[in-house]
Structures are given as structure tokens and as C-alpha cells.
């Protein structure tokens, strides 16, 4: 490990800032342990757009446009904005849906997984195990030739996703009549918009510059061991979130009574297992997909569209888990998701004998 590497320290800084803002956004008003949660934010935002009728989950989260537009600005400054895509578009939409199903069963994305853990929520441990196993299985697939194709350079299309999120941000301020905002439930809890948006922009920029990604960190850790900068970024994220949780009095270690958590260990594991496999196969966790879509990657843009569809479906069909546990439809959905993933690994495998 080269400790004089500037990029390594930038990744560690990004991880640290993610941890601090992840805790502070909760302190400023976001739901407990959900300062940053891409899947929760997506479910809230599609609810605000009227795609599901859970009136406790409808709020256009400014963090989401912040992530994407922060990444766009950072990519433009760093001359890394390149319109590219074209690798297996339909499976990527399905992958986005599966990511949201896995997150809904665990109640949170990989970022929230570690925010929950660093706040003392021990139910997240099964999720950590599931995510690591999932990334390992995904890596095995990639190693055995599973591939969704290489992206090609495109013209102009890279702007579609950033413009979509810019439109969402405009809608947040203009407030057209079709937007819905919860007056109760978790979506009614939110930080002031300027803090949410500001945090989103900073984190989006940092994540673009450093390629910060939870599943990417696990992947690199499994491949490169201690030499992986992203692994250290992830560790910095966990340590800073842990320290800040203690500092602001939000650390509460235990299994029971944790916010936004359930006690069904097998399904916590299975939900994150699905997220881990899919993330490894498509090259990044839900946050990373948002960031890549912001720097012109239309393949990631399609995953984001899939995630938007998935976020609506998990709420509309009652798939999502709650503190009461995982509903039957959720269990069937996550198993179906795993079956589809295994099937796609068979279908998209380049074999040496072929």
C-alpha cells in the first residue's frame, strides 16, 4: 500500500465525508439511520411523482439530483464526461429493478447498511455477510466469463439522465400540482432542502472523482486485499459514521428496537446477497449507478431507470419489508430476483469452447 498516493487519501477523505454527512443528514431531519439511502430516496421520489400510493413514502429528495448533478459537474471539470453505453440495455433495466427489490427486503441500500451498522444496529450484520457473499458470487461470475458487453462511445445521449434529474430538481422548487408530499411517515422527515441538496452535490462530486462505491470497495478488497484504495474509503466511511453516531448521541448498539430494521436474519442476508451479486455484475452499487449516469454512462442511466421502476413496484406491490418483517410477496420477489440473476449469468456467459 502506497500511503503517499494522493488518490488513496482522496478516497479516504470521500469515505470520511460520506460517513459524517450520512449521520448529520439524519440529525438535520432525515429519518434515523437513513441520512443517505439511495433506495429509500428513490422510493420517496417515485412516490412524490405519483408512481405508488404509499402516502408515508412520498417526498422528492433533493439529495438524488444532488448526487447526479454533482457527479456531472465534477466529470465536466475533470474532463471525464463521456457519453457511452450500449451494453445489454434491457438486462440493465431488469438489474435496476432487482437492486431495488434486494434493498427493499433489507430496508436500505449498501450505504444505509453500513450507516445502520455504524449506529449499532446489529441486524445489519446479516446484510453485511449477504453483501460480501453476493459480491464474491458476482466476481466468480465475471471470472467465468459472464459479461453484459463493453460500452461504446455515443453522442449526446449522456446528457439524458443529468437532464432528467435537473428536471426533478426544478419540479422540487416549482412544485407542480401532480407532485405528492407526505405529511406523515418517514418521507415527512427530511433535512432542510439546501442542506440535502448541498450534501448531495458534494457527495456526488466526491464519489465521481474517487469512484467511491460500497460494493466496489468490497470487490477490490476481495481482489487486491489491502492495496485497494476503495476498501480504505469504505473503512473510513464506517469509522467516521461510527464516531459521529457516538458524537451526536445516535449510537445504540443492539438487535432490538432499531430504526428501519427487522429481525428476519435470513431475509436480511438474502436481500443484500441479491444486491451484491447484481452490483458486482453491472459494476457498482445503486449510488455508483447514479454517479456513473451523471458522467454520461447511459448503461448506468438504464439501471437508474430500472431502479426508478423497481422503487415504484416494491411500494405499489407491497414487496418492501418493514419493522414488522418481510411480507410473503417480498420473499417470493427476492427469490425470483436471485433466480433471474442466475439465469442471466447462464445466458450472458462467454464460454471458452464457444
Amino acid at each position: 500500500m502506497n500511503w503517499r498516493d494522493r488518490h488513496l487519501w482522496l478516497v479516504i477523505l470521500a469515505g470520511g465525508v460520506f460517513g459524517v454527512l450520512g449521520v448529520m443528514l439524519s440529525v438535520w431531519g432525515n429519518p434515523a439511520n437513513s441520512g443517505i439511502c439511495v433506495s429509500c430516496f428513490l422510493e420517496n421520489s417515485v412516490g412524490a411523482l405519483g408512481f405508488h400510493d404509499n402516502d408515508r413514502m412520498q417526498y422528492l429528495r433533493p439529495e438524488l439530483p444532488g448526487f447526479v448533478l454533482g457527479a456531472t459537474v465534477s466529470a465536466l471539470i475533470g474532463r471525464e464526461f463521456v457519453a457511452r453505453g450500449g451494453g445489454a440495455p434491457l438486462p440493465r433495466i431488469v438489474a435496476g429493478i432487482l437492486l431495488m427489490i434486494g434493498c427493499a427486503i433489507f430496508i436500505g441500500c449498501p450505504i444505509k447498511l453500513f450507516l445502520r451498522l455504524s449506529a449499532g444496529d446489529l441486524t445489519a450484520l446479516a446484510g453485511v455477510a449477504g453483501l460480501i457473499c453476493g459480491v464474491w458470487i458476482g466476481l466468480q461470475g465475471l471470472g467465468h466469463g459472464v459479461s453484459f458487453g463493453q460500452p461504446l462511445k455515443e453522442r449526446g445521449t449522456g446528457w439524458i439522465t443529468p437532464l432528467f434529474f435537473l428536471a426533478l430538481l426544478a419540479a422540487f422548487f416549482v412544485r407542480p400540482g401532480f407532485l405528492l408530499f407526505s405529511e406523515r411517515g418517514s418521507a415527512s422527515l427530511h433535512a432542510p432542502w439546501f442542506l440535502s441538496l448541498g450534501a448531495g452535490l458534494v457527495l456526488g462530486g466526491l464519489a465521481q472523482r474517487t469512484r467511491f462505491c460500497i460494493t466496489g470497495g468490497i470487490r477490490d478488497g476481495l481482489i487486491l486485499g489491502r492495496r485497494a484504495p476503495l476498501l480504505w474509503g469504505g473503512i473510513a466511511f464506517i469509522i467516521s459514521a461510527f464516531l459521529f453516531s457516538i458524537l451526536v448521541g445516535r449510537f445504540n448498539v443492539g438487535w432490538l428496537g432499531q430504526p428501519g430494521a427487522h429481525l428476519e436474519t435470513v431475509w436480511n442476508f438474502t436481500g443484500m446477497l441479491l444486491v451484491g451479486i447484481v452490483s458486482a455484475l453491472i459494476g457498482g452499487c445503486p449510488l455508483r449507478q447514479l454517479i456513473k449516469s451523471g458522467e454520461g454512462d447511459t448503461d448506468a442511466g438504464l439501471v437508474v431507470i430500472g431502479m426508478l421502476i423497481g422503487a415504484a413496484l416494491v411500494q405499489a406491490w407491497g414487496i418492501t419489508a418493514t419493522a414488522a418483517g418481510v411480507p410473503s410477496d417480498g420473499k417470493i420477489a427476492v427469490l425470483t430476483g436471485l433466480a433471474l440473476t442466475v439465469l442471466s449469468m447462464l445466458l450472458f456467459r462467454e464460454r471458452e469452447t464457444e
Partner: protein
Amino acid sequence: MFVDRYDRLLWAVFILLLIAIATTTAYSLQGSAYVTQHNDRNLARKMIERARLDYLADLYAPVTAALESGDYSHALLALGEVQRSFPDEAYGQVLKGVILSKMGAIDAALESLAAGIKRDGNYIDRNGSLSYRETVAALVVNQLPLYAARVANDAGDTIALTSKRHLHYLQSRLAGGCE
């Protein structure tokens, strides 16, 4: 897709997952929790609908009482009171249309009915609660030939043209179809 050991492993996992899905589905359908989960959502919807109907009935009680007793001018006054707080509420607009039609102010009645039903088609549905389908259907059957004749006689009669347009809209809603 059966080339090597990895392929066979994936197929085995896939089959195991299919068995797991079948088992979970069978187990779910057997238990009462699955039925309860879905009944809860339907029940919640019914409760909201019931609450809406009760609220509207309560809000417009003086209007409907006067309408039923045939005191149309008092019904209109009572409606004006409610509409001061909720000027564009659909049921209020439908009620206004019904009262005006009883009073013979057909053009204004058609305008109100069309506006109310555009906002909420429930008030003309066959199975809709608080439905005024029969009243509106009678109005369309009786008035459409009259307005058609008026427009045929004087193509520049803009009031008749507007009312005829409203009648055709109501006729289309009465005819049903997918919205």
C-alpha cells in the same frame, strides 16, 4: 449452456431457487397472513372511500336536504356557502348543475355538470356512490336534440354551441369506455 462445471453449478442453483420460490409461494398462499396483507390494502381503500362519502354527505347536507324538498333557491344559497370554502370541489359543481337544471337554467347547469364530472367521473358512474347518472342521462336525452336544432338554425349562437359541446361530453361519459 452445459459446457463445464460452472454451468452445471448455475443450473443446479437455478433449479434450487425455483423449488424455493414454489415452496415459499405455496406456504404463503396457505397461511392467513398473505390474505390478510392484501385484504388490509383493500380495506384501507374502502375506509378512505367511506370517509370521503361521509365527509361529502356531511358537508353538503343542507344543500341536499333543500334539493330533496324542492326548495331550489335555498339549496343554491346553501351551496354558495360551501363553495366559498371549496370553490372547485367536484361534487359541489355537480350539485349546482343538478339544482340549476331543476330551475330551468340549462346552459349554466350543463357548464357546472361538465366541470364537476371532468374533475371526478364517479358522479356519473353506474356504480358510483353519490351518482347523478339518471339525472344527467335524462338531461342529455332531452336537451341534445333541442340544442342540435338551435345550432342548425343559427351557427353563430355561441351559447348553444358551448352547451352542445358540454352535452356531447356528458353523452361520451355516459357511454363509458376506457378512460
